[in-house]
């Protein structure tokens, strides 16, 4: 009897290139990770402001003027949207990163953690806005 050919395993490895475009979940992931860029950019703007403050009144006023330019306003609007989305997704994923939290013997649900976080963020934002508005006035 003719012997059968020795089986040849030849596992095929599929390429990962373009992985994040293949699934809407990953596209969204890349977008919300991308909002970190805006967070970093805004931190940079504030840092520049701090430096300008240390350089005297003229530099400080120059910086405030620059903030009022249309480009700057545009950038800030975009950043606000990005930060909001960043917060939204941050608190949505937060339950996954925490160990179980017990309040009065019952485990806090993921919804409770997310809503709590978002509520705290909203409140802090409102308070900050009120304080800053008053100072500016």
């Amino acid at each position, binding site marked *: 009897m003719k012997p059968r050919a020795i089986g040849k395993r030849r596992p*095929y490895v599929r390429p990962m290139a373009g992985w994040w475009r293949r699934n809407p979940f990953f596209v969204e992931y890349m977008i919300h990770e991308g909002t970190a860029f805006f967070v970093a950019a805004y931190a940079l703007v504030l840092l520049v402001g701090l430096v300008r403050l240390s350089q005297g009144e003229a530099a400080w006023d120059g910086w405030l003027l620059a903030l009022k330019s249309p480009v700057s306003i545009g950038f800030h609007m975009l950043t606000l949207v990005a930060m909001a989305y960043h917060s939204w997704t941050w608190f949505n994923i937060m339950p996954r990163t*925490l160990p179980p939290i017990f309040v009065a013997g019952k485990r806090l649900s993921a919804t409770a953690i997310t809503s709590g976080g978002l509520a705290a963020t909203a409140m802090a934002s409102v308070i900050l806005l009120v304080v800053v508005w008053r100072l500016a006035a």
Partner: protein
Amino acid sequence: MSEIEKTIPIEVLRYRPEQDTEPILQTFQVPFTDDMSVLQGLQYIKDYLDGSLSFRWSCRMAICGSCGMMVNGKPTLSCKTFLRDYYSAGLRIEALAHFPIERDLVIVMDDFIEKLESIKPYIIPKTPRALSEGEYLQTPAERDMYEQFSSCINCMLCYAACPQYGLNSKFVGPGIMALLHRYNMDSRDGGAEQRMELVHSEDGVFNCTAVGYCSEVCPKHVDPANAVNINKTESAKDYFLRFVMPKGAKSGAAK
């Protein structure tokens, strides 16, 4: 039984290493009824259209973990995915992502098994107990702390979901971390410290960037993302404690 009138196109990624240089898509027209699962569709293809189609399956009820595959690009168990949800456009079935394809819908899962064996996935008793003393006492609340993580059926959908694993297969990955965490959280176990080495190793939990898709696709609601990310904190605590109490530093694993 009502007459079978409808057919649905099922596109399958074939790969026969002895004749194909690379995987190719092949479409089959499969007659179906509303209650048929994707697995039953594949069985029809194998029984009547092409006996050379190979795929893993067994229990048909989402507990053995054999039948994981990609349906329209999403990791899922074929036994509890239903053809009616893809009618009439049809569906595309491929082997589970991020694993090498052995043949058709069969992946090479040696890596998963090796990882499973490497984490000491068994009780390392905190206190010894003779069989004659009966069971360790464990309250329902203590049991709740790990039960969710003990429900993993080793289906590897979470590995197919995890892009970090796809980019770096040395990463320990979600499912195995869930199993590791299951033992750490079991009140009878005292082996967390022994497992910590792997947790903060190069291939450990810090490869995770909280994509979270693993927990989305898990058919048993194990929440492996949770297991991985809790252990980032545990790892940090352990690291810090080693500085504070270098000699005999206890593992920071919360109980």
